[in-house]
């Protein structure tokens, strides 16, 4: 009997870690596909209103965001009387430059897309729920003037 037993101590075999990286990579790709990078840091407080009939936007690459809300820091540009800021890209815009800035923003957003995608470009209005409609109306008017007609009122999901 004892001739089969070579040692009292048995060495545990080393685990093969090669496939572990595959599993982690799978996770990684999953997250890469379902996520979007936050391209701009927020300069305004933004709490979306809650709604029930919301729809998901199909293509994230065809969405341009316009943020409206109370400014986070005191140094941001505001619209009169000074409680609400509008953020395009990563800057809040000055009241007197609003018309030109919105036009430029729409122009550059449209230009950065392929010609056949331009009509599908959606402007998502990310407006804080406490903002008065006067600011939203101004922006909607500018969007309309510049032929950016596909818009989206960003909202969170409410059960009922």
């Amino acid at each position, binding site marked *: 009997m004892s001739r089969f037993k070579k040692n009292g101590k048995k060495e545990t075999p080393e685990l093969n870690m*090669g496939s572990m990286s595959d599993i982690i990579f799978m996770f990684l790709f999953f997250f890469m596909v379902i996520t979007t990078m936050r391209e701009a840091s927020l300069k305004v407080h933004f709490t979306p209103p809650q709604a029930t009939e919301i729809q998901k936007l199909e293509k994230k690459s065809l969405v341009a965001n316009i943020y409206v809300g109370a400014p986070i820091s005191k140094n941001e540009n505001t619209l009169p009387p000074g409680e609400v800021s509008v953020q395009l890209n990563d800057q809040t815009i000055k009241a007197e430059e609003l018309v030109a800035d919105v036009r430029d923003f729409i122009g550059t957003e449209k230009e950065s897309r392929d010609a056949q995608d331009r009509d599908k470009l959606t402007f998502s209005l990310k407006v804080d729920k406490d903002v008065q409609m006067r600011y939203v109306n101004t922006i909607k008017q500018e969007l309309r003037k510049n032929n950016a007609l596909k818009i989206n009122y960003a909202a969170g999901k409410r059960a009922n």
Partner: protein
Amino acid sequence: MSKRKTPGLNTGASADISFLLLTFFLLTSSINTEQGIPRKLPPPKTDDTPEMKADINKRNVLNVLVNYLDQISVNGEVMPVSELKDKAKEFFSNPTNDPSLPEKVNKPIDGIGDFAVSKGVVSLTNDQGTSYNMYVQVQNELQRAVNELRDETALQYFGKKYDVLDSAAQRAVTAAIPMSISEAPPMDWSKNGAQ
């Protein structure tokens, strides 16, 4: 010539690397925030577009007014936002062919056949001082009324809810239950009224 065995690479560290990447993506990303109520703005005004269509019959218009205190009036009747959906639904469907509710026109629609399409239009007016939250709630309730009617029509003609229909059937249902909201220029209470 004896074949030499290549020593196995130690791949344990590659799991660490991919973990690092995974954590990076987890931290820098936000999952699916792009959701909301999609709308189309009317095309910009040109000189050709008529100012107002005066020939729209009064019974075909549902006047929804939201004032600066977020109160809602529908055709002159004040109501909470929770009742707006049923009112809009009744307005769009007009089940009893009430002469005070919108008229319907029989139209042939592919896949459905003749369908009495409502001529109703919701005219939405808000104040400059209306809160955005209330505006979205009103839009939401109107959308909900239309969605419920579309679901009912889809169940009746196709036996399925609107969401799970194929795109041709969805187009047919959309043609049968159109969603027409017209936004009037906003009022400004702080300019007209005494403050």
